């Protein structure tokens, strides 16, 4: 069965936004009334990231379970998933950024992943979505040895969190070091089919020139999570290799520039065929969360509401027809 959640990351465009309880409450209520039943969190660190990690949840809501109550009070069922990027360090334990391509960082990645997965289990969540490695400009070449090191890291994490009832989903994005030389497919081949799944982020796939439907058809049993969002452009100039591409390309739009890489579902001139994605998931009997995302939205409530309309009036009927 497909369950629908919404990513909260769009509500926090910069470090000093979205810190107050009222902001969180209103965002969760907008998600709920727009037709979603879960929320996906994003990791963060420090006192201005109240939803960023288990310690901050406890500091702001009494405990992780206190936050679960807060989510339910907003008429959402649960936290569906948590997005974790190991290349961000944590002030809470003074930990440095940890790169899965570096064997010395594996212990830190595993410890932090377990920290989040444990909290996620308390929140009723089921998927830890992770960024598997650095951006391409940071690691321009991932040879088979490096892919093997990254795979080992995530195989270990997958085994560590499986007993918690939490699945691991490696999330590919259009700036990823996995983009050149078929890195994504090589990582799929190198990871454990039982404990390491993948997250299909439709907007990121299309921006990277990949076909998300073909990926689902090719690896249906490795799809552990879906982030559904529209894309407005393809990075067909290899701008992802530019230094600090996160700033210059993703947020700055690159040389063209692209005003918004990502759009709401079903909106012209979007390039993602969301209906085809859902049909593919249904055809392969996908059982899990689809998180609708609108990161970098200029207007988060509107994005959530327009995506909610598309969910209710277009996508849900595809799921229901298949029943």
């Amino acid at each position, binding site marked *: 069965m497909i369950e629908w959640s919404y990513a909260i990351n769009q509500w926090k465009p910069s470090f000093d936004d979205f810190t107050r309880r009222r902001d969180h409450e209103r965002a969760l209520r*907008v998600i709920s*009334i727009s037709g979603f039943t879960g929320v996906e969190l994003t990791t963060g660190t420090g006192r201005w990231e109240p939803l960023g990690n288990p310690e901050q949840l406890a500091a702001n809501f009494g405990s992780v379970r206190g936050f679960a109550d807060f989510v339910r009070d907003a*008429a959402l069922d649960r936290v569906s998933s948590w997005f974790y990027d190991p290349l961000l360090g944590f002030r809470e334990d003074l930990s440095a950024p940890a790169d899965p391509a570096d064997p010395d960082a594996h212990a830190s990645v595993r410890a932090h992943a377990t920290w989040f997965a444990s909290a996620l289990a308390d929140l009723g969540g089921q998927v830890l979505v992770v960024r598997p490695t650095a951006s391409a400009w940071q690691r321009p070449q991932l040879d088979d040895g490096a892919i093997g090191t990254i795979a080992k890291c995530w195989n270990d994490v997958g085994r560590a969190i499986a007993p918690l009832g939490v699945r691991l989903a490696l999330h590919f994005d259009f700036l990823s070091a996995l983009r050149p030389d078929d890195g994504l497919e090589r990582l799929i081949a190198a990871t454990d089919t039982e404990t390491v799944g993948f997250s299909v982020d439709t907007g990121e796939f299309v921006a990277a020139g990949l076909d998300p439907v073909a990926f689902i058809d090719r690896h249906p049993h490795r799809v552990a999570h879906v982030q559904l969002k529209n894309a407005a452009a393809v990075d067909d100039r290899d701008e992802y290799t530019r230094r600090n591409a996160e700033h210059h390309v993703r947020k700055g739009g690159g040389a063209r520039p692209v005003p918004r890489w990502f759009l709401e579902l079903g909106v012209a001139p979007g390039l993602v065929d969301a209906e085809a994605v859902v049909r593919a998931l249904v055809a392969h009997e996908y059982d899990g969360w689809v998180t609708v995302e609108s990161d970098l939205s200029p*207007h988060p*409530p*509107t994005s959530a509401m327009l995506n909610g*309309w*598309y969910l209710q009036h277009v996508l849900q009927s595809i799921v229901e027809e298949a029943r």
Partner: protein
Amino acid sequence: MKWSYMDHWRSASPNGPIDQWQTLDSMDRFLKQVAAVGYDAIDTFDHRYFQIMDQYGSVSNYQEFVQERGLERIVNTFHAAVYDPRTYAPHVPETHANILEDFRVTMDRWSGISLDNIIVMPATLYYDMEPVTDDKIKTTAELWNKVGAITLDAGVKLTCHHEFFCGIQSKHELDVFYANTDPALVNLFVDTAQHCIATVDPVDFYEQYADRVTGFHFKDTRHQDLVGDYRRRPDAELMATTTPKWFHEMGDEGGLVDFEAFMRAVVRNGYEGWLSVEHDKANKLGGDHAESTAIARWYAKNVLDRIVAEEGSK
């Protein structure tokens, strides 16, 4: 209980804030957002007629556009007249012919669809009616009895919405007005925030006139007018001394309206009809119409629906 959303909207555009009537695309996005959060219909202003004719060709075409996005229909229209004691003022008998003709024209323009109510502010701005006397209110009531006959002939109820800054807004003024209007022709549309601002308890007021009520604006406020803002020249609504933002969405923090008590009264009185949500000027002080519209609907679904169930089971 079915919910309708009243027209007010602003969104960002490359040319600054726009309302939903700017383009077909901005209307499409507005209607989808309203439908997404569970409203069943919309209300509008009848002065939108000109934009409707320009962009959609007819009122019924526009309603089809609304329906294609998952909303049932247009329920009510608000007749936002520009009052002027020289030409168009309910307490000035010499202007009544103009007003009556305006309603004949308006009802003809909207005859292509079926409306429940046409909503009016039944008096001019307070300062244009001062001193407000019982005689002026009776003159005003005579006019609306005649207008009510015109609208009813077109199958639409005339209903009165008392802004806190209009000439009939205190409890005494309201009582005089309703004592002198025909219940078959002139109805009441309770705006919870407007009465609250005017220091008239909306629950008590509704209970007193429940049999004349044909609709509501569920809307909140954090302030009552205790300093005479209602008669402020040139404007009370945006330029008040008390606050730059009178209106807040239902379900926001700090509101003065007791919506749970109000909804219990609505159920207790057996009201059968549409409930409208309004939060005009929600974008003031950094507010956002889309978010407010979602928050109000969340409150209706998650708090008021429970009240309806509880009260209905008694």
